[in-house]
């Protein structure tokens, strides 16, 4: 289904807000959304995510470039703070159908089906301005789906929901998206939400597309330290390639001392950023003075939220972060000052160019 013309394509898009040195510029060379794809646009606040989404919906006039929509393709956009009109929930959901000139009976029929899909059919006659945060999100999604769009654009759809509401709503959304085969583009600053819904992720930083790739690519091989920060690769260390090239492992000397081996290739003496995801830093309790491949480290800080324990390690002068399952094994017993044995698989070490 991914073949053929894209449902929505962004080509050479340029948008500028404001003037002078404070002007914000959004620049997207190319971005495509095909049938049944789920794309997440990930980035911090102010990266231009909302602007991009609104441009994709055809609501903003770009300075250059264009947003190409397939013929007869219906695009629905759910705003970060969805507008609730005075009136019943049903009235709110029927509005897009009224806009398209549907008759009253067909409107109420389809609104009912859409409300049912999001589990709020029982609220149809309620005054929409009295809904809770979670119910409001469901109303907005039901209103977006009521026109049976080909493309659904979501701006932080789970913002300001509690964990339980987020979970149940994302399950419902996933189900309806699969049932209707709609292509989705979701904007979020939350990596976990992006991973839950999307098969492709675009990382947006300061108005430019820093990287576009599959979930795995983005998680394992961020393009630069800034992307690494956004996708949770919290260990990014400067180093220089000491050996490499042909066969065998590349060895990188980290600034501060220790060496690390990796399967990735890089030119000799090249300055690089070494990236390691915290969950790929494996620890074992250290007893005595036995040798290990990477050596020993000392726990300098440990912080647990009850689910994950984040440990900060000092590895021969290099600071490393790692995650442990809280309350189990090392995650239960480890404390500040403890020595640990460290191992990082060479295939889990990612190299990024450093200039």
């Amino acid at each position, binding site marked *: 289904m991914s073949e053929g013309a894209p449902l929505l394509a962004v080509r050479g898009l340029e948008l500028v807000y404001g003037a002078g040195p404070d002007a914000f510029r959004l620049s997207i060379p190319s971005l495509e959304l095909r049938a049944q794809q789920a794309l997440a646009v990930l980035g911090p606040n102010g990266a231009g995510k909302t602007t991009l989404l*609104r441009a994709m*919906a055809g*609501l903003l006039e770009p300075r250059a470039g264009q947003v190409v929509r397939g013929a007869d393709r219906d695009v*629905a*956009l759910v*705003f970060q*703070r*969805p*507008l609730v*009109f*005075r*009136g019943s929930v049903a009235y709110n959901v029927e*509005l*897009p159908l*009224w*806009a*398209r000139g549907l008759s009253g009976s067909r409107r109420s029929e389809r609104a009912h089906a859409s409300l049912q899909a999001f589990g709020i059919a029982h609220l149809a006659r309620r*005054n929409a301005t009295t809904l809770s945060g979670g119910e409001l999100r469901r109303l907005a999604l039901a*209103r977006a789906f009521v*026109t049976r769009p080909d493309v659904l654009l979501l701006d932080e759809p789970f913002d300001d929901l509690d964990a339980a509401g987020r979970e149940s709503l994302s399950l419902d959304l996933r189900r309806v998206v699969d049932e209707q085969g709609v292509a989705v583009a979701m904007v979020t600053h939350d990596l976990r939400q992006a991973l839950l819904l999307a098969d492709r992720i675009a990382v947006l930083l300061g108005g430019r597309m820093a990287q576009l790739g599959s979930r795995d690519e983005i998680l394992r091989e961020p393009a630069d330290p800034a992307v690494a920060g956004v996708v949770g690769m919290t260990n990014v260390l400067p180093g220089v390639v000491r050996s490499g090239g042909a066969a065998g492992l590349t060895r990188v000397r980290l600034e501060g001392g220790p060496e690390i081996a990796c399967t990735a290739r890089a030119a000799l003496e090249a300055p690089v950023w070494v990236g390691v995801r915290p969950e790929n830093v494996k620890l074992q309790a250290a007893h005595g003075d036995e040798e290990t491949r990477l050596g020993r480290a000392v726990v300098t800080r440990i912080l647990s939220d009850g689910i994950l324990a984040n440990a900060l390690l000092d590895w021969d002068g290099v600071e490393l972060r790692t995650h442990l399952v809280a309350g189990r094994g090392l995650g239960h017993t480890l404390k500040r000052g403890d020595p640990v044995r460290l191992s990082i698989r060479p295939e889990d070490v990612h190299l990024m160019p450093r200039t």
Partner: protein
Amino acid sequence: MTGFPWGAVFEVALRTLAVCGSALIIALVLGLPVGIWLGRRRFPGRSLLVAIANTGMGLPPVVVGLGVFLLLARSGPLGPWRLIFTPEAMVVAQVVIAWPLIVGITLAAVGALPADFHLQVRALGLRGSRALWVLLREIRMGLLAAVIVALGGILSEVGAVWMVGGNIEGQTRVLTTGVMMYVQMGRYEDAIALAAILMGLTFVLTGSLTAIQQTRRA
């Protein structure tokens, strides 16, 4: 109260309603688009226009009357239209009084909508008259307030309509000018009777509008 001219009073009350009703409708037709436009758009000079509208909301009716009188008087620039001392002249004066009230309250109501209201309306596929209908429906409380304030203002106003209408019996006498005249003539009972009718009219009209506003708030 013997020999009180009930027929004439009825006619005066009807004329009051006709003049104020026409003025209100014209002020709405001329004021709503301006209020919506000023409430929506951001452009250089907008704050000056808003300030003018707000000043207009406090315009003394006597000053309006004088201005319209000078404009419509036989020797004035619009003298050839022969409108002075006609009900039409009174409507003109009342439109000038009501228009800033409609504009000011409408733009405040539109301005109170969320900043991305119009973008969201457009994103739902609403365009043109449908988008306008949804907007009017959202600001209907503000619109009702504008109508109540404007109607109350022109129903009770006396200076401007006297000046441009002349309080001519059978032609331009309305309830307020009638009250004034009877007081000047020392016919206090007749003045009180007209005042009571005026009060009743104001109460019924603005009261029923308020009732609509309150029940719709649910």
